[in-house]
C-alpha cells in the first residue's frame, strides 16, 4: 500500500511493521512525530507493545536496555542533544550485545541553539559500537528499520537509523508500506538467547578484570565484521521479497567518473541532480552515497573509487581541528590502496541548504588542480 508520509512517520511505520514490543522515548524536535504516531498506534492497540514515556533520553535508552535484556524487541528515537545525553548508554547497549534499534534525526549540536540538520550528532557516536545506516528517502527509512532488526538480531549489536532533520524528517514522500505478512516472514519473532530468565538465572555486565575484558571487546569487533556480511546478505534477501535494494554504499554514475563526489544522507539527491547537469556539459562526475558508517565498508569504498581521478568528500559535519568525519573514514580506507587525490569540503552545517550550486562551486574550486592545496575547504561561509 502506498501512502504519502513524512520521514518521521516512515520510522513509526517501520517500527510498527517490525512488531517492536517496548518503546521508550522522550520528545525532542525534530523527532517528535515519530513517537506521537507510535503512541497513538500503541494506544489504539494496533501494535502489542508497551510504550514508556520516560523523563529523559538517558532513561529512554536505559529502559530499552532493560527491555531488550529481558528479551523484548526494543525501540527508541531521538536527535542531537538527546543522543548526546544517551552517549554513556550507547556504549552500554553495544557492550551488553543488545539488538536495539534507534532512529536518530540528524540535528546540529548546540550551542548556539539550533534545530536544523547536520551530522555531527550521530557521527560523534561513531565509536560506541552501534551500526549506523544513513538514509536518503522516506522509503529507505521505513525499510531500514526492518532490515536493522534483522541484522541486529543476527549479530547482537544495536543499529542507529539516521535521517536528516526536516529535509527528510518533515518532508512528505510517497512510501510503499510493505505487507505485514511479508514483513513477519522476513523478520520472525526474536528469541534472545541471553535474556534475563528466572528459569535460568545469569548475571550480565558484572565486574570483569583485565583477565577477560579484552575477550568481550574482540567479540564485539568480530560481530561488527559479521554485520558487514549480514548487511550485504540482507540487501539481497530484502530485495527478493520487497524489490528494493540497500547496500553499504550507493553509487551513481561512478564507473566512468573522473571525479566522484562522496556524500551521505539527503545531500546525495542534490548531488545527483548536479551530476546530471555537469555530465550534460561533458564533465564526468559521479556520486557515491555512503549509507553505512559502521561497520565500515572498506572493500566497497575501495571498489567504487578505484577508477576515480579525483575524490571530493562533502561533509555535513566537522571534527574541529581535523577534517570532516566522513573524509577521515574514506581517506583511511583508501590509504595504501589508492593514489587518488582527495578533497574535503565542509557544507550545510546547522541546516544550511546544500543546493546544486553548492556542488558546482565545489567542482569549480577543485577545477584543474592535481591535488588539494589545503587540508579542508569550507563552502558558502560568510566572511
Amino acid at each position, binding site marked *: 500500500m502506498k501512502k504519502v508520509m513524512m520521514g518521521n512517520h516512515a520510522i513509526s511505520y517501520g517500527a510498527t511493521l517490525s512488531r517492536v514490543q517496548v518503546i521508550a522515548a522522550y520528545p525532542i524536535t525534530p523527532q517528535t512525530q515519530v513517537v506521537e504516531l507510535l503512541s497513538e498506534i500503541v494506544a489504539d492497540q494496533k501494535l502489542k507493545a508497551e510504550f514508556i514515556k*520516560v523523563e529523559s533520553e*538517558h532513561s529512554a535508552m536505559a529502559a530499552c536496555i532493560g527491555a531488550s535484556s529481558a528479551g523484548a524487541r526494543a525501540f527508541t528515537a531521538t536527535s542531537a542533544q538527546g543522543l548526546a545525553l544517551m552517549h554513556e548508554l550507547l556504549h*552500554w547497549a553495544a557492550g551488553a550485545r543488545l539488538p536495539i534499534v534507534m532512529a536518530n534525526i540528524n540535528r546540529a549540536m548546540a550551542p548556539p541553539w539550533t534545530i536544523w540538520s547536520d551530522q555531527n550528532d550521530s557521527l560523534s557516536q561513531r565509536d560506541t559500537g552501534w551500526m549506523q545506516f544513513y538514509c536518503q528517502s522516506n522509503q529507505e527509512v521505513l525499510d531500514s528499520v526492518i532490515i536493522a532488526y534483522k541484522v541486529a538480531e543476527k549479530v547482537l549489536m544495536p543499529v542507529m537509523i539516521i535521517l536528516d532533520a526536516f529535509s527528510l524528517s518533515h518532508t512528505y514522500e510517497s512510501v510503499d508500506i510493505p505487507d505485514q505478512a511479508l514483513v513477519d516472514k522476513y523478520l520472525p519473532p526474536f528469541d534472545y538467547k541471553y535474556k534475563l530468565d528466572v528459569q535460568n538465572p545469569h548475571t550480565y555486565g558484572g565486574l570483569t578484570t583485565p583477565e577477560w575484558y579484552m575477550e568481550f571487546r574482540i567479540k564485539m569487533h568480530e560481530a561488527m565484521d559479521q554485520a558487514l556480511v549480514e548487511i550485504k546478505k540482507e540487501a539481497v534477501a530484502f530485495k527478493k521479497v520487497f524489490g528494493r535494494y540497500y547496500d553499504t554504499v550507493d553509487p551513481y554514475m561512478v564507473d566512468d567518473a573522473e571525479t566522484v563526489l562522496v556524500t551521505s544522507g539527503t545531500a546525495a539527491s542534490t548531488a545527483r541532480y548536479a551530476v546530471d547537469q555537469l555530465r550534460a556539459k561533458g564533465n564526468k562526475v559521479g556520486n557515491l552515497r555512503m549509507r553505512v558508517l559502521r561497520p565500515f565498508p572498506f572493500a566497497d569504498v575501495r571498489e567504487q573509487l578505484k577508477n576515480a581521478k579525483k575524490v571530493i568528500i562533502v561533509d555535513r559535519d566537522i571534527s574541529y581541528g581535523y577534517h570532516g568525519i566522513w573524509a577521515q573514514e574514506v581517506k583511511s580506507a583508501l590509504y595504501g590502496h589508492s593514489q587518488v587525490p582527495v578533497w574535503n569540503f565542509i557544507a550545510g552545517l546547522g541546516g544550511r541548504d546544500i543546493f546544486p550550486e553548492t556542488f558546482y562551486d565545489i567542482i569549480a574550486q577543485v577545477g584543474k588542480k592535481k591535488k588539494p592545496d589545503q587540508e579542508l575547504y569550507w563552502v558558502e561561509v560568510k566572511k
Partner: protein
Amino acid sequence: MKPTLPLEELMSPGHLACQGCGAGIAMRTTMKAIGQDAIFTFPACCWTVIDGPFPYSCLEVPLLHMAFEATAATASGIKAAMDTLGKGKTTICGWAGDGGTFDIGLQALSGAAERNNDIFYFCYDNEAYMNTGIQRSGATPYGAWTTTTPVKHFKKEVKKSIDDIVAAHKVPYQATASVAYPEDLYKKLIKAKEIRGFKFIHILAPCPPGWKAKPEDTVKLARLAVQTGVFTVYEVENGKYLQTIKTPTRKPVLEYLKLQGRFKHLKENDVAEVQKLVDSRYAELEKRFSEK
C-alpha cells in the same frame, strides 16, 4: 523454636562484602521475601562488587548490571518487556545505593515513581559513596566525616529526605527499614509484593569501613539508629503513615554517634546540634504517624 524468617537462602556465601556489611544483610533478608521469581538490576554501587566478579554471582536470580543513574528506568524497561512477553508475575527490582538514589539516580527514580511503574526500588543506604572510598553523598548526615568532608570541614548539610521526595510522588507503597529488624523488612516486602505500582524501600545499612565502626557493631548501630530516632522505621501506604518499629522513649543520639569514628571529632555543641536535627525530624514524622 519457630524461625521468624524462611530458612531458604537465595544469597550464597562467597560474596565479596566487607566484614559486617549492612548491605549484605539487607540483600539477604530482601531475597527471602522477594523469592526466586524476580529479576534485579544494579547500578554502580557496593553491590556491583559484592555480587562477585565475572563469571560469578552470589544471587540465585537473573541480574542486570547497569549504569549509575539508570536503575529505575532500567527496571521500568525490564517490567515493560516482561508484561508484553506475558511474564508479568515476575517481580522486578532495582537495587541501588544512596548515591545512585539520592543523587545521580534521582531523576530516573522520580520518573518511574511518577509513572507508577510496577517495580520495587530498593535503596540500601550506607550514607556515602562507600564503593569509591567514602565520599559524601546527599544521604550523608550532618556532622559526618567523609573523605570529601574532612574532619576540619565535616558535613554541614543535613541528610536529604529521600522518603519525603518519593512521598511527594504519591506512590502506592513506600517503607523505611533497618537491617537490625529483618522481620519488619520481610513483612513489609511480603505485603508490598501484592501491591501493583511503584514501591520504594529505603533500608539503613551500616558500613563498618565507611562509618569507622566495628564490624560486630553493624546490627547494634542499625538498632541504635532507630532507637535514637536518627532513622525512623515506618511505612506509607496510599498516603497513610504507620510507624512499624515504635520508639516511645528515644535514646540520646550520642549513644549512636560514639560508636562511629566518622563522628568522633564532634564536640558537645555539635552533638547537641545533631540531637536538635534528629528531634525536629522525629517530631515532623510523629505528626504524620498520628494523622488519622
